[in-house]
């Protein structure tokens, strides 16, 4: 085997090893949606939030709730606050990228809204968490977003 062939083979092996490391395998959670929601919102004072209806999801998040197996959306009662969260269960994993794109657009639009007059709310948005775990996803804009995310992961 000459050096070029050896080099080619070496690279193929390295690429194969690299690809193996790249495969992440989050399996679908079989937990009940209500249980996941219940455990996730333990870290949230829900009295300060109002659950939103389907129209609000379409309007604010550009999401059609009928497409998902389950979805809930809570916004802060105070309209001058950017705090909100969404927990969704997908019907299939292809929905994840569209969900993420829409939520990212939502965050960017919200930052535009709050940046001019409520920098603290804009900063909160910049720390927003979008966590997609196979058939479940969480979007949260809260001071303790990471704690809520951890609760979400444990719930799954």
């Amino acid at each position, binding site marked *: 085997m000459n050096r*070029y062939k050896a080099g*080619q083979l070496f690279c*193929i092996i390295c690429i194969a090893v*690299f690809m193996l490391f790249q495969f992440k395998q989050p399996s679908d959670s079989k937990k009940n949606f209500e249980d996941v929601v219940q455990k996730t919102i333990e870290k949230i004072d829900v009295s300060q939030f109002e659950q939103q209806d389907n129209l609000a999801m379409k309007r604010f998040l550009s999401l059609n709730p009928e497409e998902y197996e389950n979805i809930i959306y809570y916004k802060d009662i105070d309209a001058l606050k950017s705090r909100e969260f969404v927990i969704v269960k997908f019907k299939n994993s*292809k929905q994840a990228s569209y969900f993420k794109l*829409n939520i990212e657009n939502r965050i*960017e*639009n919200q930052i*535009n809204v709050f*940046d001019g007059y409520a920098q603290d709310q804009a900063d909160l948005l910049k720390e927003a968490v979008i966590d997609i775990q196979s058939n479940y996803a969480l979007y949260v804009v809260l001071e303790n977003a990471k704690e809520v995310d951890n609760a979400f992961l444990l719930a799954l």
Partner: protein
Amino acid sequence: MTFNNVFFIFLFLPVVLFFNFIIKNKILKNLFLVLFSFLFYAWGNPSTLVLLILYILFNYFTGLEIDNSEGKQRTITFVIGISVQVLVLFLYKYIKLLFPFLSVELNVPVGLSFFTFSCLSYLIDVYTKKSRAQSNLLHLSLYISFFGKISMGPIVQYNQMEKELEHHPFQIQLFCDGIKLFCIGLCKKAILADSLSIVHTNLSASSSVLGSWLFAISYMLQIYFDFSGYSDMAIGIANMFGFHFNKNFDHPYNALSIQDFWRRWHISLSRWFRDYIYIPLGGNRVSNGKYIRNIFVVWFLTGLWHGANWTFIIWGLYFGCLLLLEKYVLKDLLEKCPRFICHIYTWILVLISWVFFMSPNLTQAFGVLGKMIGINASLYDMNALFYLRSSVVLILIGIVFSFPVYEKLESYVLGRWKQKASIALTIVYVVVFLISISYVISNTFQSFLYFAF
């Protein structure tokens, strides 16, 4: 890292240009360019740099082995080279399309489709003896990783860039053209595309005819300014470093037919498919049956290249069907039709294609198309009226500048007033640049649409 980023514009690019200018030694110049390209690519996700470096090494060894082999061995080496890279692309992007039950998830490296096609171009050019294998690893690294084109193209064929890899000297006129093109691209992206994106996003839930049309038209303009803007910036950057890249967009909405549209839209991709798939299959120098097969193969792959979704495949095949229709049925009619009819014909068909392209699934695509013709839709809604009133000027500006209005105006002004016009235009470019920067800084940042590919 992206081009419409303050850090890139005011720090990264000036630093790289500075080193490129002061370093006179060709080898050192290229070395710095490659290292900065690696830095650009690895920014934010260093692990994907590993794949890029492996690709460079793999193509380096494979190219040299092809060049040093004959007959069957040469073909086997070539097939292995192509197969490995196509397989990696398949695993990253398409495995879930064919095996949706698999719960695997891979983060697709930025620009994977683009630099994979660059690598395939290199191997095919070497195999077909259009080019010799590159024995200089630095030159090959520069071709594959050059930061001006790695993330979102243009997909420069190896044979087109080969001669400039060793020596791409600073040329003042080319450098100035590059700056101008970069400014134009930044304006297209930061001012037009990002503003249109806001309109598009806020109309996504519209259930009216008006809202659906605005939704589709805003996307049609957004994707053009987004992608052509990035291409302009990429080609402008290449010019600044002494490279000549062909233009990637030629006012596609000025097309008079679908065939004309595809001579103007994402030119580097359509040329890649023409030179490496369509022509090797026989092109149009075959029987009608094989010609139709060739068209469907190319357009299926074109759709698939854009993403692992049936909407992209339908989008590609849709254009394949239209091209066949134009060749076999509409050709004479289009030649006799007045230009404005041809324009309207092309716009409507292209607009329909963008509805498929932007929709996450076929159901939604047909839903939007249905609403556009009044199925399950009211004539208008308050949201649509609001965005019509607030964005009509933006949409009109977008429509006007999607035609070669500015170029014709610039040529006329320069021809008429020469030096005075030159000074005035320079001021215009500076002002446009500053306005674009203010848009970038004011957090209307939207990631490039084609970044996903």
